[in-house]
């Protein structure tokens, strides 16, 4: 009798492929308990980032909608110093659209703010001064060309706004990390009696841009700018004066690599140093809810790039932040933040060969930041901080332009208290 031989693979397949474990009632019960427990856990964990994302999207959509309709003008502008004996620059669009009577004399605008030159001409100065004196917004608006080239928008933006970015970035990072310092180092209500009266801390933080979009609007013309890399390193020192008040100062180094829209092949590097000082007050209505008023911050930024000599800008911020802290464990906690901010640009100074020094007072801008931060105690006095946050802001780059930015950032640093 011939034996029915089967290859072992085939035999195995035939034998086990139809095999089926018979589930018991306990299997479903165990799975049901596990599944819904996991789901609940996931739901709780994701609700906060979800709120942040939805909130930011709503804000961004509202922001764009509102800003696109606005006329660009500069309120309460004041020119303190005007250039003297500068040769006139040509801008055909401006010439064509200018409402000045004398076509030879006008406020020129070309390629960057460095070219905002006021001609040393009686007629133009007279007209310009009249605008300043009368704070005639309409006058300024009319003098703005409807057809400023994309290149001009791009270049002027890059020169100034990248400097502003550094300040705003540092600012956003600080408002996220500082309250965390307070919370994690000593601000535990259960340890009330152990609070030191004053606590010094110092640290270093690194920051990078994960994703970003920058758009400039000039009379409803949107220009999207290209930005490659954006990172920062900042060292800081701070003092908690009381349980909920602290003052901090820091020095930051910041670099942005970007291409202008006018020349995709040209990589520009903008390097900035910034000095940031701020005072924070935290108010606790409940154990986990913090309202942070950053009552004052004063920044000075010095920037150097290939395209221009240097720029320094001073800002003052007036923010309010609402924070929700989730104590995961004694060592680890998570903090979500939503903040609304007004910041005032107090001065702009541009120096360099052939450039005009100007100062415009003041400019008000606004931003919103949404963040998720983590604080982890590595040792008794040493803390690791990391976070991710989204911020969006709108600013008047100069009298002609409104710039919108939406950036997603991450930061990682250590803080040592002593």
């Amino acid at each position, binding site marked *: 009798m011939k034996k*029915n031989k089967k290859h072992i*693979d085939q035999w195995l397949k035939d034998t086990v492929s139809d*095999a*089926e474990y018979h*589930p018991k009632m306990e299997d479903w019960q165990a799975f049901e308990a596990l599944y819904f427990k996991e789901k609940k856990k996931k739901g709780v964990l994701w609700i906060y980032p979800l709120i942040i994302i939805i909130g930011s999207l709503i804000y961004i959509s509202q922001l764009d909608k509102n800003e696109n309709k606005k006329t660009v003008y500069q309120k309460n502008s004041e020119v303190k110093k005007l250039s003297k004996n500068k040769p006139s620059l040509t801008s055909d669009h401006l010439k064509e659209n200018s409402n000045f009577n004398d076509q030879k004399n006008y406020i020129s605008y070309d390629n960057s703010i460095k070219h905002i030159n006021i001609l040393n001409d009686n007629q133009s100065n007279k007209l310009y001064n009249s605008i300043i004196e009368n704070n005639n917004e309409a006058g300024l608006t009319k003098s703005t060309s409807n057809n400023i080239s994309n290149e001009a928008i791009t270049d002027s933006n890059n020169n100034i706004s990248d400097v502003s970015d550094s300040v705003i970035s540092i600012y956003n990072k600080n408002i996220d990390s500082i309250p965390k310092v307070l919370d994690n180092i000593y601000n535990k209500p259960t340890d009330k009696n152990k609070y030191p009266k004053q606590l010094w801390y110092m640290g270093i933080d690194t920051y990078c841009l994960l994703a970003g979009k920058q758009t400039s609007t000039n009379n409803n013309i949107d220009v999207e700018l290209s930005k490659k890399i954006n990172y920062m390193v900042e060292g800081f020192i701070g003092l908690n004066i009381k349980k909920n008040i602290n003052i901090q100062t820091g020095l930051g180094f910041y670099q942005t690599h970007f291409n202008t829209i006018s020349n995709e092949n040209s990589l520009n590097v903008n390097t900035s140093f910034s000095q940031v000082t701020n005072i924070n007050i935290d108010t606790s209505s409940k154990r986990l809810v913090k309202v942070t008023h950053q009552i004052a911050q004063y920044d000075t930024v010095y920037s150097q790039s290939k395209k221009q000599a240097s720029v320094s800008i001073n800002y003052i911020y007036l923010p309010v932040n609402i924070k929700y802290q989730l104590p995961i464990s004694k060592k680890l906690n998570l903090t979500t933040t939503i903040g609304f901010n007004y910041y005032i640009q107090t001065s702009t100074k541009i120096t360099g060969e052939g450039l005009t020094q100007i100062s415009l007072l003041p400019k008000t801008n606004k931003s919103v930041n949404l963040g998720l931060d983590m604080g982890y105690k590595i040792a008794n006095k040493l803390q690791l901080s990391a976070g991710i946050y989204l911020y969006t802001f709108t600013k008047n780059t100069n009298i002609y332009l409104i710039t919108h930015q939406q950036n997603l950032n991450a930061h990682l640093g250590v803080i040592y208290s002593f």
Partner: protein
Amino acid sequence: MDDEKELIQKCIDGDRYAMKQIFQKHFGKTMTICLRYIDGNENAQDIAQEVMIKVFDHIKEFKFQSSLSTWVTRIAINQCINFINKKNIFVSIEDQDIYPENIYIEEEEIKPEVNSDYIIELIQKLPTGYRTVLNLYAIENYTHNQIAQTLGISEGTSKSQLSKARQMLKKLVSNHTPTIVKTTSEKE
């Protein structure tokens, strides 16, 4: 198929009874797959539960291009392989030894008590590397190239592991049913 579609829709809508029905229909097969790949019943049960969690989490994405059973099977195999890959148990073997390809079983001589459950128990006794390659090649019909890509090993390693797995399985079957299983190395 329509019933299955309806059941899936109910499940998407959050009907817990529909979930239970899907679970009861597919957990058995999933558990069997996990038992074939994973060493130890408890580990297999954990992986099977993870598979079912994935199924319910992603059931909205099911496109009805295959049966639900095929989809669940694919998830189960992937989950098992992920678990195995995490353990990093494979050592690349580049030896040039030739292993016998043709190993046969004579069916008539296998006792009725050597059923599928028993074979799965024997498969579990194989080292993880052997077991994984054998499952993928013999039951899931993967090629050596596909196995190599899936497990991050060379084709040579896959071939040698398969061959060793076959030999060892044959030995295990023989040891437990010595009178009915014969080893043959003859070539067809």
